[in-house]
């Protein structure tokens, strides 16, 4: 073998943790790609954004709440404790769940175009919410419970259907089942909209479908946190394994893994977290699709790093969008609109920039 220049030489000699090399390092040695440091930076960013979000809002005037007001104005204190804090916590859970679930879905389906709502979850939640609004009442607790039940119902239906389909491999069957179940629920939403009272219920449904965190309370957070935290923990613990699960099934098998069972475990965990957060927030577009791409761009494909970075990035992105949603205009801008507009914009920029990186 020819001599290898020092700068391109393999890692290991570089000391300090297992710094996995990643694409591009060889051509641009000026950029240190230490994943751990990058994750720490993202974590700090998240803490900073969360802290800022506590002070940002439209009370008493648009902009930042001063410390003085916070200490002396009881209304400001109640506002921060009862409205802003739960909203921030819910936003972090929402962003982390969508980011993590997006990464899991894209790796497991070996397809960078899938997103977490794929297995009937998003449309199930939307149908459940619409049904709750029309059949019972617009009481948020009822709408959320109904959304969660139908989101999990969507997952369960996709699962049953995938087992019944007598065609193709397991992943293909899940995809087909997810598409079919989502289509059924979409049709259901259409039907519910048709019978909804156009003056009140239809608006409620439309607003829910646009997504947002405007009515999040501590009760909502307590309702969402347990399934979200459980789902996220499982996925986080298995993060390196996601790489193996993204390979062909027989290769994963030859590597001593049980691809069928392990894929189901991570998919189910990711979907559980998604179903929980979506039942409170409504449909939040683009985050689950775009954030994992951004994370892979920023810190490499290895899921041991791209999964946590996707979680942190998702949380930061949701918090920033939500800050805009509740601050810029006197009325709340639906979060789903902002994530889609900003997400698509950021995504396009990211995909156009740094073209030396990729060629697929």
């Amino acid at each position, binding site marked *: *073998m*020819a001599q*290898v220049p020092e700068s*391109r*030489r*393999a*890692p*290991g000699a570089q000391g300090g943790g*297992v710094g*996995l*090399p*990643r*694409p*591009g*390092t*060889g051509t641009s040695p000026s950029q240190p790609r230490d994943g751990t440091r990058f994750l720490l930076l993202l974590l700090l960013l998240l803490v900073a954004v969360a802290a800022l979000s506590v002070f940002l809002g439209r009370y008493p005037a648009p902009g930042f709440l001063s410390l003085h007001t916070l200490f002396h104005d009881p209304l400001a204190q109640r506002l921060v404790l009862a409205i802003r804090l739960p909203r921030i916590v819910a936003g972090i859970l929402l962003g982390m769940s969508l980011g993590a679930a997006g990464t899991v879905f894209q*790796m497991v389906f*070996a*397809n*960078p175009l899938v997103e977490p709502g794929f297995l009937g979850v998003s449309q199930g939640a939307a149908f459940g919410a619409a049904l709750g609004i029309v059949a019972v009442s617009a009481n948020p607790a009822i709408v959320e419970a109904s959304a969660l039940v139908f989101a999990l119902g969507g997952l369960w239906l996709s699962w049953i259907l995938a087992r019944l389909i007598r065609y193709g491999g397991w992943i293909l069957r899940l995809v087909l089942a997810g598409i079919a179940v989502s289509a059924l629920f979409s049709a259901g939403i259409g039907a519910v909209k048709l019978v909804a009272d156009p003056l009140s219920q239809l608006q409620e449904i439309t607003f829910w479908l646009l997504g947002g965190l405007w009515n999040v309370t501590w009760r909502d957070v307590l309702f969402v946190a347990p399934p979200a935290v459980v789902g996220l923990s499982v996925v986080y*613990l*298995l*993060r*390196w*394994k996601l*790489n*193996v699960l*993204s*390979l*062909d099934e*027989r*290769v994963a*098998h*030859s*590597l*001593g*893994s*049980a691809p069928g069972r392990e894929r189901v475990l991570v998919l189910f965990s990711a979907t559980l977290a998604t179903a929980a957060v979506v039942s409170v927030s409504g449909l939040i577009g683009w985050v689950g699709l775009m954030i994992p791409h951004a994370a*892979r761009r920023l810190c*490499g*494909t*290895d899921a*041991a790093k791209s999964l946590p970075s996707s979680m942190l990035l998702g949380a930061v992105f949701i918090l920033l969008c939500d800050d805009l949603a509740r601050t810029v205009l006197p009325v709340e801008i639906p979060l789903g609109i902002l994530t889609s507009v900003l997400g698509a914009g950021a995504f396009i920029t990211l995909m156009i920039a740094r073209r030396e*990186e*990729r*060629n*697929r």
Partner: protein
Amino acid sequence: MSLLELRCVDFAWPGGRGVLDQLSLTVDQGSMAAILGPNGAGKTTLLDVCLGWKKPQAGGVFLQERPLSSFGRGERGRLMSLVPQHENVRFDFSVTEYVLLGRAPHLRPLAAPGKRDLAIAMEALEATGIVHLALRSIARLSGGEYQLMLIARSLAQEPSLLLLDEPASQLDPANQLRVVRMLRTLASRGISVLYTSHNPQTAAVAADTIHLLSDGRLRFSGPPQEVLTERNLLEVYGVPLHVVWAAKNPHFYWDVD
């Protein structure tokens, strides 16, 4: 000692078409065996059965004289690795990240590879001669480099038995030679190699034992000079192939007219 043994294995698709028929085969420790046969003879299925990925309807698969089904998944993964014919990696790992996936059966359930694993992955890159590609994105590898990377990944698994499906069929002559030499080096280090080929040339130059397979049956087994006769090849491929022995190696050609 036999490392891998297939005893009277039958495999058929659920529809009923039989693929493997009463197939028996032994791979000894440190040996290098080739399964040679035409396209569709059942070579890949045979590897899948060895790997435990496909379960035979009858007969048994034994690893180190123990039934394969009695092995745990990790245990099996530490003994046997696979280089598939096509492996489509959809994500843009770096070569090292990809090769590290070979460490999976050696890791504790929730662990990620550590320094020792990285060192082993680097050794695998060295053994395959692609250390200089360690940091390269796998989307930018040539076909030959890609094949070497697949082999490196399976070496990082530190297997006793290496299964390869058509390891040289898509490579140019120089890369074919590289792969063949590497496989021989591995066998000389005590790693058993079982590989499939539809090309008698790549089978003849590397293997100690050649198994001629057609229609799911082993027609002939033995050292190359005994098995690779014009008569046997005619029976297996269905067209007359000429064999010329020169410089201790057989060479194959056919008449177009």
